[in-house]
């Protein structure tokens, strides 16, 4: 899968590394700003209280 991605990418090795770094940074940004907060909203937020 990742090997296939490496072969699909154009250009010399340094350009592929740069492209992959940019892609990875993009994935991280999407995770941090959208995916993780969305996942977090399913986690119970009220287990710090006493209740019957």
């Amino acid at each position, binding site marked *: 899968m990742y090997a296939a991605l490496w072969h699909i990418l154009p250009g010399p090795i340094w350009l592929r590394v740069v492209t992959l770094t940019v892609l990875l940074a993009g994935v991280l940004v999407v995770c941090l700003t959208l995916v993780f907060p969305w996942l977090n909203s399913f986690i119970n937020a009220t287990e710090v209280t*006493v209740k019957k």
Partner: protein
Amino acid sequence: MSNSGLRSERNRAPRPRLSALGVLGELLVTAGLFTFAFLGWQLWLNDIILGSAQRDQALMLSEKFLNAASPEKPGSATKVSVSPSPSSFDSGALGAGSSGAGSVGDAGMTAGHPGSAMTTAVAGSDQKFANVYIPRFGDDYVRTIAEGVDTGVALRSGIGHYPGTQMPGEIGNFALAAHRTTFGAPFNRMASLQLGDRIYVQTASGWYTYVFRSMEYVQPRDVAVTAPVPQRAGLAAQDRILTMTSCNPQLSAAERIVAYSVFDSWQSLTAGAPAPVRALAEGRN
């Protein structure tokens, strides 16, 4: 033509075949990295980000309170103190300050201004109505208190106030809850509270100083800790208690950690913030 032919020739040789097992393995490795990234974000990075945002929200609320209070009102620059002073606290029961706390209310009411000015109105659900400053949690520690602990809105924005419990400075129990880990973790350092630590509550009506007395660990169903007299449901209150609850142990919901503080003094917003938190409250920190 020859160029593209060469290229496909060159690419064909080293290209590995996509096997189902290989793809599955790579997906699992990716899922593992994703999980670790999420945990790192939830347990560490997001607490820093949210903690900072919650602090900024609290400082904005403080500015709002101070701006609203800035026109000088007659008799508003008052300070009310209770005896015995917190420095004279022994390690006895919570009720030690009862006679002093009671007399403050009476003196305040008869004198007129302090008693009535000391009251904070009950807030609507999820509405932020106060800030709490706890120097033991950090020199720049301030968080909002919003009404409610059930919807999660208040607990995501800072500290929640148990509906139905008393408001700051009232005789009875001003009961709060907040996260110890995740969601900004406002009560992360709760176990570090020491006897005599000051807890400053700021509302539109003024500053309420509480003094930490004791810690308790209870079952999640032990609702009596938020009773007007903690752990003595049905008993008529004489003291002004601040109760804080959070989860225990950290990252678990098995138990609750409970911290009790007793009311020490009140002063109006125009009298200025208590010295230890003045710079922070006025945005000069």
